[in-house]
């Protein structure tokens, strides 16, 4: 099983949108995919289910050793896609399970998910690289960074790179799959310039060719509890995420050859 954490330095940059639609794309390719809501805000659940507030989920598992992962998995209409909500125990983050105990439980969670024979596990994480997000990254194979294509968003890039460098010291096998530019506005010079600046500064191949545009389609899809690819007018957006998934497949294939994944 490949665990891909979707992370960012700042909040509100489109991690949840990216996580949902990427997981949907992986599942559409025929791979059994589990989407995990690792954000105490429960954004994935809020976007995809009406009853997310009542669902037992990831944070409940961290705080309750009697819970089984099977109990947490919520199937979707796509047979190859299931999700685990954030759960009711999101106060776990605040109460602090104590260093050492949470890492063990996070690792156990992924071990048990692997035992359910999922091929891909996409984890939507809370913003920043500390707390449970750090524990998730410590257990992940790869990380995808959502980066807002706006001047103010770009300013968080140095901090993001420093945080990731520290995470790699903890988990040397963590592969930085790339930076995904989100909320790109092609008709706004400042957004275009920010995207171009990032591509020019970062090494070739680090910023994915496929970007996520700012589009009210994502808001409408979230209101209906659907990935954008399932919307009537979502064909173009679906194609976009399929291209992104193909880019990631190529990177993951390279990881296999290196013996990392």
């Amino acid at each position, binding site marked *: 099983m490949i665990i891909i954490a979707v992370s960012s330095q700042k909040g509100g940059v489109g991690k949840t949108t990216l996580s949902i639609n990427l997981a949907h794309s992986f599942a559409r390719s025929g791979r059994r995919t589990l989407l995990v809501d690792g954000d105490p805000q429960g954004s994935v659940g809020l976007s995809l289910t009406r009853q997310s507030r009542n669902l037992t989920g990831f944070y409940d598992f961290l705080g309750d*050793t009697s819970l089984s992962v099977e109990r947490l998995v919520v199937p979707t209409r796509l047979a190859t896609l299931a999700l685990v909500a954030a759960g009711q125990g999101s106060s776990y983050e605040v109460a602090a399970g*104590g*260093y*050492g*105990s949470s*890492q*063990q439980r996070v*690792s156990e969670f992924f071990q048990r998910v692997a035992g359910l024979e999922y091929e891909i596990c996409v984890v939507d994480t809370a913003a920043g690289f500390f707390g449970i997000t750090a524990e998730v990254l*410590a*257990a992940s194979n790869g990380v995808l960074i959502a980066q807002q294509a706006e*001047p103010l968003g*770009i*300013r968080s*890039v*140095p901090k993001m*790179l*420093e945080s*990731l*460098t520290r995470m*790699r*010291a*903890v*988990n*040397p*096998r*963590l592969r*930085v799959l790339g930076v995904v530019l989100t909320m790109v506005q092609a008709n706004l010079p*400042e957004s275009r*310039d*920010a995207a*171009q*600046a*990032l591509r*020019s*500064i*970062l*090494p070739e*191949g*680090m910023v994915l060719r496929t970007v996520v545009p700012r589009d009210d389609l994502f808001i409408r899809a979230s209101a209906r509890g659907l990935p954008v690819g399932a919307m009537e007018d979502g064909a173009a957006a679906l194609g976009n995420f399929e291209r992104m998934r193909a880019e990631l497949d190529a990177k993951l294939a390279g990881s296999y050859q*290196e*013996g*990392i994944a």
Partner: protein
Amino acid sequence: MGAVHGWMDESEVRRLAEGLMAAAPVANPSGYDSDFVGFAELDESPEVAEEAWQGAPTASQEVADAPQAVAGESQAVVPNLASGALARASERAREAGLLRPMVAAAEAPAASLTDRLAVFCGWLTSEFGASEVYLVDQEGQVAFDGLSQSKGGEFARKLARAACSASREAAAGALSAPVHLKLGHGSTLAVFPLETSQGVMVMAALVPAAIAPAAHGGIAAELAKVLGDERRV
């Protein structure tokens, strides 16, 4: 683009990014480096065992004899932490005012079990140079996990849990045998049981050299103090 380039140290950003895109060096898939030679040899001569233990004053002696020295000692005791995991645990304990020479559990400020175990691990680091520590109780429940996520760390966890099972199945009063695996130059994985009145706990620790069996009792005693087990002191 000027608005972005003007405030960013582009060369530093690029350096960090290139470091991240490069494959991280991994010694070998087993988690052991090319110096792995197998089981470590213990020098079990009485002199070595005695030196290993008597050279380590207990915290209660320091507190009783030299309060000022204790304050300075607490700084000297701050270990050279090789493991990021243990460094974070010790930092949490330090911030909580817990990382100081061991005092009797009754005198220590109230703290969570994890924080108290972090203090114990900090003591192990200062006395034996432990860089990663893992503690599991006789039921197989993890009490503290400071091991890395590498394959070596996973192997150490499995070894500790196996030792736990062995202790449970052993005849009454018997314990699983200590294991020391030399992982490389200056690196040994030590796995051995510690008896407490709450049952056997198994410790796995990455140490510079094997820990002599004669020292295990003292380690168990320090663990007992942390667990508030005055009956075993």
